[in-house]
């Protein structure tokens, strides 16, 4: 097979305008939101329907060409990087909210719908889509499902898998299946539960039925300021231990606070060592009680100050700081390696401290901006790709931090996924047998391993062992995207 035959086959399957193959077109699809790796696909298709996705997949896999599905490409684990070339399926044209049913609180959407756009569409009904990754203004509902994304408010409302009820999925052989149901507990195995979070390795989700969440009656947002990071970490542990589950409980630390302040003007004190952004929502009476209990815990934990957002404008500003945090850190250094470990919430202070020690040892700047209430750490290791060796140092430091998370009883990824980045770390958590059971699931859906091969699980790749070195070289040569 030549690349030309593939392109011709795709053009006849779904029409020439939906097939991109010129180098300048392909370049837009060689990276994701991380600076881990870049690789050019052989071809990109932009189908406009489930049938077109199926036709393109059938054509490609029939010729033995691997398929990588891409939403907005904001993923942080290299999940959409076509490191083995092949066909990228962009879902950019499948971007419609098909229906909203306020009575059953569900929406039917195409996978390319941007996360916030779904919430905007649901707003007239007093509802929203609860998963709220910080990338929500660009990441897609399909990508959120593909990676089982979390977000600040997932502490109370659950991650994406808790909000996907049914999906239409195109499998490797081009067949189309319907998984899940809006009717609870329908007989049969929960295949949808395996597909959500499968990072494009089991199939391509081309339509989703998702749960919508009613907007809360009332909401309160607090900014809690600390002079010591340890105290902030201990405060998070204490809030959870007191049996308080806020809607969101986020933490930001170190130089990041000043950087965010400089870029977003969110109202964070630049001299703070750590801040907590706490939000509670629900019925008025419950909030009054929770607010009082949270204030008590914060005071007892040695907070310098607790500020309450006076109105929705102040609240928005506090959140703009959190959601713009990653971008703001570019003021400190142009590139980042973001770690996504999770620890039991009672272990937060020690692992946080350890992450700073590791960064110092590797001579890297670190900013922790993370979903503290879930124990989901995001040490952001900052570097400049042009300085030789810093990227490798960042990856090595990240690895040490993840090992500490595992040692504390946690995991190597809370929400960003395994992708290319962490597939070699899977054995820290899982035995050969565990991994073989995952491989069995993969083989059920995709027996010849055509869908996003080598992601999540390291499997049958011809050149897989060389991939990381190639990645380093390619990234450093071209400079990374942020």
């Amino acid at each position: 097979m030549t690349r030309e035959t593939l392109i011709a086959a795709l053009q006849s399957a779904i029409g020439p305008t939906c097939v991109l193959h010129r180098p300048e077109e392909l370049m837009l699809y060689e990276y994701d939101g991380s600076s881990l790796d870049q690789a050019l696909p052989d071809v990109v298709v932009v189908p406009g329907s489930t049938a077109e996705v199926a036709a393109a997949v059938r054509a490609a896999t029939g010729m033995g060409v691997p398929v990588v599905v891409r939403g907005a490409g904001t993923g942080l684990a290299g999940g959409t990087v076509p490191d083995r070339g092949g066909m990228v399926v962009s879902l950019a044209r499948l971007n419609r909210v098909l229906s909203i049913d306020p009575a059953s609180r569900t929406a039917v959407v195409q996978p390319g719908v941007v996360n916030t756009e779904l919430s905007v569409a649901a707003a007239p009904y007093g509802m929203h889509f609860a998963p709220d990754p910080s990338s929500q203004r660009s990441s897609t509902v399909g990508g959120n499902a593909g990676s089982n994304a979390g977000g600040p408010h997932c502490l109370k409302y659950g991650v994406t898998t808790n909000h996907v009820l049914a999906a239409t999925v195109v499998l490797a052989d081009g067949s189309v299946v319907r998984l899940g149901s809006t009717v609870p507990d329908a007989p049969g195995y929960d295949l949808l539960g395996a597909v959500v979070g499968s990072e494009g390795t089991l199939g391509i989700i081309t339509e989703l039925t998702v749960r919508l969440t009613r907007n809360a009656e009332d909401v309160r947002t607090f900014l809690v300021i600390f002079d010591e990071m340890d105290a902030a970490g201990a405060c998070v542990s204490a809030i959870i231990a007191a049996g308080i589950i806020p809607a969101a409980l986020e933490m930001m630390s170190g130089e990041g606070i000043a950087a965010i302040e400089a870029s977003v003007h969110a109202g964070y004190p630049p001299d703070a060592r750590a801040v907590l952004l706490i939000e509670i929502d629900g019925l008025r009476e419950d909030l009054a009680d929770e607010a009082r209990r949270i204030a008590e815990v914060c005071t007892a934990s040695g907070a310098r100050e607790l500020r309450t957002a006076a109105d929705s404008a102040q609240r928005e500003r506090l959140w703009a700081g959190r959601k713009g945090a990653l971008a703001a850190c570019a003021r400190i250094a142009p590139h980042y390696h973001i770690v996504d470990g999770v620890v039991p919430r009672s272990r937060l202070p020690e692992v946080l401290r350890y992450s700073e020690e590791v960064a110092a040892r590797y001579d890297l700047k670190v900013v922790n901006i993370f979903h503290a209430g879930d124990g989901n750490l995001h040490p952001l290791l900052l570097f400049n790709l042009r300085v030789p060796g810093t990227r490798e140092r960042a990856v090595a430091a990240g690895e040490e931090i993840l090992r500490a998370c595992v040692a504390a009883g946690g995991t190597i990824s809370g929400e960003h996924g395994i992708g290319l980045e962490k597939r070699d770390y899977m054995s820290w958590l899982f035995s050969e047998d565990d991994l073989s059971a995952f491989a069995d699931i993969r083989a059920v859906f995709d027996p010849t391993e055509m869908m996003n091969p080598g992601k999540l699980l390291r499997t049958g790749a011809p050149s897989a062992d060389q991939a990381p070195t190639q990645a380093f070289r390619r990234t450093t040569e071209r400079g990374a995207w942020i």
Partner: protein
Amino acid sequence: MDFTLYSQPPARVITPATAEDLADCLREASAAGSSVVPWGGGTRQGLGGPPTRYDLALSMSGLSRVVEYTPADLVISVEAGATLGMVQETLAPHGQWLPWDPPLPRRATVGGLLASGAGGMLRLGYGSPRDWTLGMRVALGDGRLVKSGSRVVKNVAGYDSHKLHIGALGTLGVIAEATFKVAPIPPRRQTLIAAFTTTKAPLEAIAQLRQPPFHPISMVILNDEAERAIPALHPFLRDHSHYLMVAVRFAGTAGAVARQIRAAVAHCVELGSRVIELNELDDAPIWEAIADFVQPTGDLMLRVGAPLGQQYEMIRLLEMTTRARGWATARMVIAGVGLAYARWPIAGVPAAALAAALAELRAGLATIGGYVVIEELPAAPGIDRDVLDVWGAPPETLALMRSLRAAWDPAGVLNPGRYLV
């Protein structure tokens, strides 16, 4: 415990003491081709058809320990043979609970409840057990002891394989251990009971109670046969003149609960509710009694699911199927969730007549996207199980399910013949 199933005793009973033992048992059974029926508390063995072969009863009573519980993390790991009651007793002193209320919690084990996909009424407010399960260790049919998920509240490493075992009736593997996220017990819980005389009014009440400001954690609609079957409710019903009873439960701080109860009472009265009784004390016993409505009796128990937009039609179909036949059936709708349970008295009813009624109900529900499963098929004389279809038409994805089963239980030794896969 008696391990007889559909009048068949097992050839042997095995009681593994550790997860590794359990895996060894399955490896040997798989190699020998001996069929295995896993047993937790036995409360839900009425679900599923008769096993095509029954060599080994695998009792989980030796695996019932709390593996790890750090109250400050709100996470607990337990062996699958632990009863839900025992888990709740472990959590309660720390002000925590697993918000899950299936019938017979003191006998039902965590593994059995997960495998049989048991629900409860708290699902409206707290979601299903799937939402609370963070990870599992499972002995697969071929004897591999595998884990998925983790012991922290967020994890995306690996596929969520544990979800595949929920509701799979032990046909892919035997759950050895499960890890759950747990919740703080709300400071106050209170229940409102309202009785209506028309079919539509309770549904209207339910619809209103799903709107702001209400956040009910449970809502059920019971017909009068169901009320009669639940003695704990009798004090609330002074006479028995064809009521449909709605029970609604709120949780939170005293202030929030009181405001919702007041507003809910006003709505119900406006809709013509005849009786309203507020239970001021601990409402847990009432809900335990309501949950136990779903426990095994001499009746045929059906579980019905239908889209939320089709609840009226679902109830109408349930009613028509049995009324035309003169059967007095007790019925409970788990409102706001899309599930209902119905008890059909089968004493003296020929199996063919039951099968015909079931087929009629299935056909009706199919038109609205619903389904029926036989939750409990009592061992009544004269009931030929081969005539009754427990699961209904298989899903379109049956081929994928079969290939998964072939990968994890290649010898087909787990609960053979009992599930749809």
